[in-house]
């Protein structure tokens, strides 16, 4: 199995589940196949095969061509694997993750936090803590200042790594 095939397999398992691998291995690059053929070859239900194919389509890893069967009048879908799109998919995901981590960094940098020593309770911003007179709204415990310097450092570090990775293509 090539490096790209391994990567696609990992990503497909994560996003479409283990069952999707059965369908994936029956899809070929540059060679069309139908959902019915895959269902016959895998022994899977046609509906399950179709669901997986649409998940792969949503991930841009598969595409289809549709024609109408002259005899039945039904549409026939010819599916094909698009393995080269894996890099676009991963790049897109990296950009989304980068945006979320940057949002979290701004939130951490622009707020002061207070926490309750009871493990199950939430962290609160200064405004929230003040409005509750520095008492935990869940357990009424005392709220202490939470030093988030390390969280900010970790977020900055991860953001820089991710940015460098995106820029290196």
């Amino acid at each position, binding site marked *: 199995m090539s490096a790209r095939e391994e990567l696609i397999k990992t990503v497909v398992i994560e996003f479409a589940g283990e069952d999707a691998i059965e369908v994936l291995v029956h899809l070929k690059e540059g060679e069309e196949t139908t959902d019915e053929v895959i269902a016959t070859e895998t022994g899977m239900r046609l509906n399950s095969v179709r669901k997986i194919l649409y998940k792969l389509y949503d991930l841009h890893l598969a595409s289809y061509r549709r024609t109408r069967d002259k005899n039945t009048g039904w549409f026939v879908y010819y599916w094909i694997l698009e393995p080269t799109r894996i890099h676009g998919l991963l790049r897109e995901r990296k950009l989304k*993750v980068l945006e979320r981590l940057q949002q979290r960094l701004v939130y951490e940098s622009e707020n002061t936090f207070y926490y309750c020593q009871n493990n199950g309770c939430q962290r609160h911003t200064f405004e929230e803590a003040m409005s509750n007179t520095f008492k935990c709204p869940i357990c009424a415990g005392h709220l202490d200042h939470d030093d988030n310097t*390390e969280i900010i450092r970790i977020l900055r570090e991860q953001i820089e790594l991710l940015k460098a990775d995106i820029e290196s293509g």
Partner: protein
Amino acid sequence: MESRAIALLKEAGSKGLLLSELIQELEKSASNVQNVIESLKRQGYVKEVEDQHNGASTTRLIWQGRESSKWNTFNGCPCFSCKEIEQCGEGQPITPWYCGKLNVWLAERLNPT
């Protein structure tokens, strides 16, 4: 020899190298170089394009980049595999400010075991 071939092909960039140029640079037999190229091609690192050189048909080799079989999720950051990422963000039902999975990941980074 493979690492030297990779370095030369990388250096050549998108213009690539003629097979004959690579053989000359590596100072190895054509068959040895061809074996290395075949291996790199199989792994998807190098692509071959037909070219003309001094009126003769020849092969140009272009480095496509070493693909990793690993999905880099940056120390397991949960956002990479999160199925709710499209609904996550400022003003959305889920935000990176309060996300439990992200909090756990940050906590693990703070206190690595």
